[in-house]
């Protein structure tokens, strides 16, 4: 397989080559590493927008509205959608694309569905690398929709320059809002399904929560497109003001540190997985396990001792 030819073709915008490169990267191992060595790093994480939130909050439906807006612009829109792999059966239903079928034939929209494949942080181990491939194929921005998450699963903060967290009425009261979770890493908080009963109580609870750290709440209705223009405006504003909160203050240090940790882990995870994948027999004697752990330690050392 000629990796250089695949990369040259995807940089020309060839969708078949892009799709194949993504499959190689998802499969992991030495071929994936060799391919990624030839793919340019992201010029700016401001081009990567994460969409996260609870299952059923309306992430895919709202993203459908965003794709409709961004596809009218000059560049291609990239979308990476992650759905959960069954921990029992190892398979997955990738059901985000079904919300976006009206864009299926648009030359300006590139969509790829990924299964989480054992990762618990809301994205798959290969997601960061897949985003790089889409960017190399000219996608600006690249949207990343996470698995449905809430109280854990903040890995998206290591991949996206801008995180939009969705919530909707009926998912919990003000105590739920106080708990740690994706709201901690959100740059924008979206109250979707804003037409439903309970929306104004939820808005108050969110506003009280955001009082502690600043940030903006945008109410949307993905069915009739209400609030979408305001959301697009806020996303664009933040993309163009990298490193600043909506209030114009610098991003606070603890959130930045959390983001650096998530980002470092996102870089490390595929390398560890690739090393494990090269060891064919997982029914390991204790000596081998000790060796793998030592190797894992070696792999992580450059990050822990920069």
């Amino acid at each position, binding site marked *: 397989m000629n990796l250089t030819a695949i990369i040259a073709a995807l940089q020309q915008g060839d969708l078949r080559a892009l799709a194949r490169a993504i499959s190689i990267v998802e499969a992991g191992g030495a071929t994936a590493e060799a391919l990624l060595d030839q793919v340019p790093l992201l010029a700016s994480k401001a081009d990567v927008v994460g969409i996260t939130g609870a299952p059923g909050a309306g992430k895919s439906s709202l993203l459908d509205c965003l794709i409709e807006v961004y596809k009218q612009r000059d560049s291609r829109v990239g979308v990476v959608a992650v759905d959960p*792999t*069954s921990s029992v059966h190892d*398979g997955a239903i990738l059901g985000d694309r079904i919300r976006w079928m009206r864009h*299926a*034939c648009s030359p300006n929209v590139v969509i790829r569905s990924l*299964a989480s494949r054992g990762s618990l942080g809301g994205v798959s181990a290969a997601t960061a690398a897949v985003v790089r491939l889409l960017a190399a194929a000219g996608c600006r921005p690249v949207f990343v929709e996470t698995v449905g998450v809430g109280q854990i699963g903040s890995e998206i903060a290591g991949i996206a320059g801008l995180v939009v967290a969705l919530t909707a009425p009926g998912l919990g009261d003000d105590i739920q809002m106080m708990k740690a979770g994706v709201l901690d890493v959100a740059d924008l908080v979206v109250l979707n399904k804003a037409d439903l009963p309970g929306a104004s109580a939820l808005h108050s609870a969110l506003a009280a929560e955001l009082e502690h750290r600043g940030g903006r709440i945008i109410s949307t209705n993905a069915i009739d497109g209400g609030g979408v223009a305001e959301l697009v405006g806020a996303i664009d504003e933040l993309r163009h003001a990298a490193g600043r909160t909506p209030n114009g203050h610098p991003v606070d240090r603890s959130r930045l540190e959390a983001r650096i940790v998530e980002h470092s882990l996102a870089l490390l995870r595929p390398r560890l997985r690739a090393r494990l994948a090269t060891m064919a027999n997982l029914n390991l004697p204790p000596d081998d396990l000790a060796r793998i752990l030592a190797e894992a330690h070696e792999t992580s050392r450059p990050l822990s001792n920069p």
Partner: protein
Amino acid sequence: MRGKILIAKPGLDGHDRGAKYIARCLRDDGFEVVYTGIRRTPEEIVSSAIQEDVDVIGLSILSGAHLEIFAEIFRLLKERGAGDIAVVGGGIIPEPDIITLRAAGVRAIFTPGSSLEEMLVLFRELAGETRRQRGLITS
């Protein structure tokens, strides 16, 4: 992960219980399944299959339009250089048409009464075949 499958219902037919059942069974057998829903055009199906880099396309058709739809799917796959994706079908399809479709390149047609085990075995074979050709698995 055994492979990646796209399940779709082309044309004007909304009876999706069978397609959803197969998608779910494939999931439980370790496949990653992209389900694109009902009333899809051949263009939407082929475009999605290419972007998702699937190994097999499975089409459920109960409307009677199978001859036209499969022909258009194959025409588009060939036109876009994606002829290596295996195509299978299921639905209400008369015996003489099954012979025509098999001759046209459809790898299998499943009708009411087909066994699930038989379908899973075929999906495993076809996905393995495509992935080996693509160098995604080496064994």
